[in-house]
């Protein structure tokens, strides 16, 4: 028995209405196809497969080649070509400049740098210039760093102490004592003096004064007006001085 008969019988039982529609459709199909469609289909299909094969890389090697040429072709697109050409040009010019300057005063000539005798050149700087530089840049120098870097000889020659009495504000440059004797001191300074008196900190006690005096260079002591200087010395200043003296003893 044909399958078609089975289907008709089954549909007749389920829906005679649809069976009628099916019979109509069998007599006159609603769907048409172009002339020679199936005769031409095979050739059209094979042509399309041929096109796809031509576009698809066969092996990994081909795939790598294809991607290389793809990148290269992208680089030469107008929008990238200008950038690519500029980078190449800059690179080439840089290379040429480096080759031309190979034997001239090259700032990156490390052998020349190694030949420099830095301490000898520093010694050539006059002491006055060095002092002037230090005073001008005293704000940038940390007190502890400065004392740590002092050499023994410098500590011995610490005569500067009587010329520049210690200031309360260590961040300010050391001022000449003559300036302090000004008949009309600025109001700010007066205020600071008042604060000093009120504050619990401290003037130097007599034992420390004696120790200091005993340890200082006699020469320096002779020229020192102690009352002017020690009146404003604080414990902090004493600690600093003790540190310097300890260094001297060593």
């Amino acid at each position, binding site marked *: 028995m044909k399958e078609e008969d089975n*289907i008709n019988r089954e549909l007749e039982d*389920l829906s005679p209405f*649809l069976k009628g529609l*099916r019979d109509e459709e069998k007599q006159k199909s609603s*769907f*048409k196809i172009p002339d020679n469609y*199936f005769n031409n289909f*095979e050739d059209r299909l094979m042509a399309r497969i041929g096109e796809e094969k031509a576009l698809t890389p066969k092996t990994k090697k081909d795939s790598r080649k294809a991607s290389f040429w793809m990148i290269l072709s992208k680089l030469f697109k107008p929008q990238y070509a200008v950038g690519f050409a500029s980078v190449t040009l800059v690179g080439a010019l840089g290379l040429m400049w480096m080759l031309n300057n190979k034997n001239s005063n090259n700032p990156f000539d490390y052998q020349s740098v190694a030949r420099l005798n830095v301490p000898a050149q520093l010694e050539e700087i006059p002491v006055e210039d060095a002092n002037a530089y230090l005073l001008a840049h005293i704000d940038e120098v940390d007190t502890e760093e400065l004392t740590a870097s002092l050499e023994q000889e410098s500590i011995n020659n610490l005569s500067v102490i009587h010329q520049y009495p210690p200031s309360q504000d260590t961040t300010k440059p050391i001022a000449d004592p003559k300036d302090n004797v000004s008949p009309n001191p600025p109001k700010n300074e007066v205020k600071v003096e008042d604060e000093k008196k009120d504050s619990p900190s401290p003037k130097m006690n007599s034992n420390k004064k004696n120790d200091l005096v005993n340890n200082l260079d006699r020469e320096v002591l002779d020229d020192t007006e102690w009352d002017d200087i020690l009146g404003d010395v604080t414990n902090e200043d004493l600690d600093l001085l003790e540190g310097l003296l300890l260094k001297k003893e060593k």
Partner: protein
Amino acid sequence: MSEKYSHTDKEQDKTILGLIRNTRTFERGFRLLVQTFQERLYWHIRQRVNVHDFADEILQNTFIKVYKGLKNFRGDSKLYTWLYRIASNETFTFMKKQQKHATDSIDGEDNYFAQTLKADNYFDGDQAQIILRKAIANLPEKQGKVFAMRYFEDMSYKEIAEVLDTSVGALKASYHHAVKKIEAYVKNAL
């Protein structure tokens, strides 16, 4: 249609696969496969998508997939079953895309479907046929497939079960449900 393409013919499968497994005769084997199955696969696809241009595109895509996958075909199933599955998948994928177009359409899904069918130069059906196609398009995926295979392609339950990889009992139930739904839809629309 099933008489014309006696795909259960094991000898035919054997000949095609024999040619395909030899590199030198691969192309000849593939051409024989296309000649043998193109018409049946075309109608299978056309009954689902209705429009000739759509069917043509899906048929080409199906055979391109077959061409690429033939070397891996081990012959566990019949050749026509394997081909039908590929065609069904391609059709389903295409219909999903079409559905999205229809949803995005200003005129709405129903009008889009009718307009597409009417615009097809290779459709010559009356209003009842248009409504019938619309009713099938509204069915769930599996019911639509089963109905089209049996109603238009005269396929036996056994053949459909092989293609869809399901039981004959389940197919019968699906077909019966589909018939009832379509009858109600068409009667209501006419």
